[in-house]
């Protein structure tokens, strides 16, 4: 038997409402790999990502992190995880710096105000660091959310459509960030409708909804 992958999905079945989205889905992702989830709208990509993050209880099957079920690991698994969903998870009344520092504290580590400023500069938000984020554009809000990627030390990144609302430069930068993360032994699980050939050779692809299409 080959060695088990770091994150392993075993015969997963997810149901939304009355509809079965997928059944007997099995795959594994190892450190240093990108998993690209594909599928048409409504094929269950977001549901699968939420299940992988532990937000959603699958109908059947198991998700294992280093051989242990994420249901039993819970907070120990959350330590290794960074999930970025459709929602940016930033507060409109707080500035970008405040948002970044609070999400870092919640993720279990502290970053100084200077560090937060430099990360936001790096991600292209110079001059907007201390504005309430409700005054920013969609793309800028997305950048505030993505700034967490630069601050975080999590191993597993689960990114749901991370490229939406971003301009060309930001897309390029995000790809670089993901590549660096994966090259450093991280795992990235992403869904996107854009072509991401540039994510590297270490990309695995899982296609959802083939049977129903």
């Amino acid at each position, binding site marked *: 038997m080959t060695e088990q992958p770091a994150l392993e999905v075993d015969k997963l079945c997810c149901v939304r409402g009355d509809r079965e989205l997928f059944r007997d889905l099995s795959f594994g992702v190892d450190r240093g790999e990108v998993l690209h989830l594909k599928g048409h709208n409504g094929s269950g990509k977001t549901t699968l990502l939420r299940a992988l993050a532990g937000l959603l209880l699958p109908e059947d099957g198991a998700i294992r992190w280093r051989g242990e079920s994420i249901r039993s690991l819970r907070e120990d698994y959350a330590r290794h995880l960074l999930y970025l*969903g*459709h*929602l940016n*998870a930033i507060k409109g009344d707080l500035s970008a710096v405040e948002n970044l520092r*609070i999400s870092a*504290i919640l993720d279990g580590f502290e970053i100084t105000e200077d560090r937060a400023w430099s990360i936001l500069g790096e991600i292209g938000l110079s001059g907007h660091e201390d504005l309430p984020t409700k005054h920013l554009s969609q793309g800028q809000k997305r950048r505030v959310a993505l700034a967490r990627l630069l601050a975080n030390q999590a191993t597993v990144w689960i990114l749901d459509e991370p490229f939406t609302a971003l301009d060309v430069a930001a897309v390029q930068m995000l790809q670089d960030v993901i590549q660096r993360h994966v090259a450093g032994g991280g795992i990235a699980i992403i869904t996107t409708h854009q072509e991401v050939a540039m994510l590297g050779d270490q990309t695995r692809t899982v296609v959802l909804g083939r049977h129903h299409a």
Partner: protein
Amino acid sequence: MLEALIWIIRRDLTIAMRRRADIFTTLIFFVIVVSLFPLGIGPELDTLRLIAPGVVWVGALLASMLALEQIFSADHRDGTLEQMLLTPQPVSLLVVGKVLAHWLVTGLPLVVMAPLLGLQYDLSWPGLQALVLSLLLGTPALSLIGAIGAALTLGLRSGGVLLALLVLPLYIPVLIFGAGAVEATVSGLGGQSHLAMLAAILVGSLVLAPVATAAALRVAED
């Protein structure tokens, strides 16, 4: 871990300070409800003194229930709530932080305002003291218990009404001992035993409610 608790309280207080209008709606609702009774019943001091503890307490209870929906709904809408469920911090600890911040913003002003409203009803000085003390012990318990209901009704379309139906019956013990403490003090019996019961309810809900709320939040985000 304690850092996360302090940060979440700071975060919620900062947000509340930047949108002050939300704070005053609860407080003004409380003032109006309590002030309506003398208008409806008439200005007979004997009657007013008699109903004062109950009226002020029911007013505080309704006002704090009205504010409940705000505890989690904004965080639910912008996605920060699901991030809180994904942190290495115990969710119940974050719930304690959020409820505490919520109480400081919506509950504490009620406690501060209550003596003024008590004066409207010609409550005696010991009665006013008992009123403040009972609200100080009771309103945090209301916030903690209400948080369970707020988490359970999160994201539902008619959540507000359902929340009231769920939470109001659970508020009854707090109301009985809260108003009872003031009545007992005014009539000279001493309200210590009522206040002790309120304190016990507060401690009990501090231990149990965050755990139940955390579980309900997980269900709500599923």
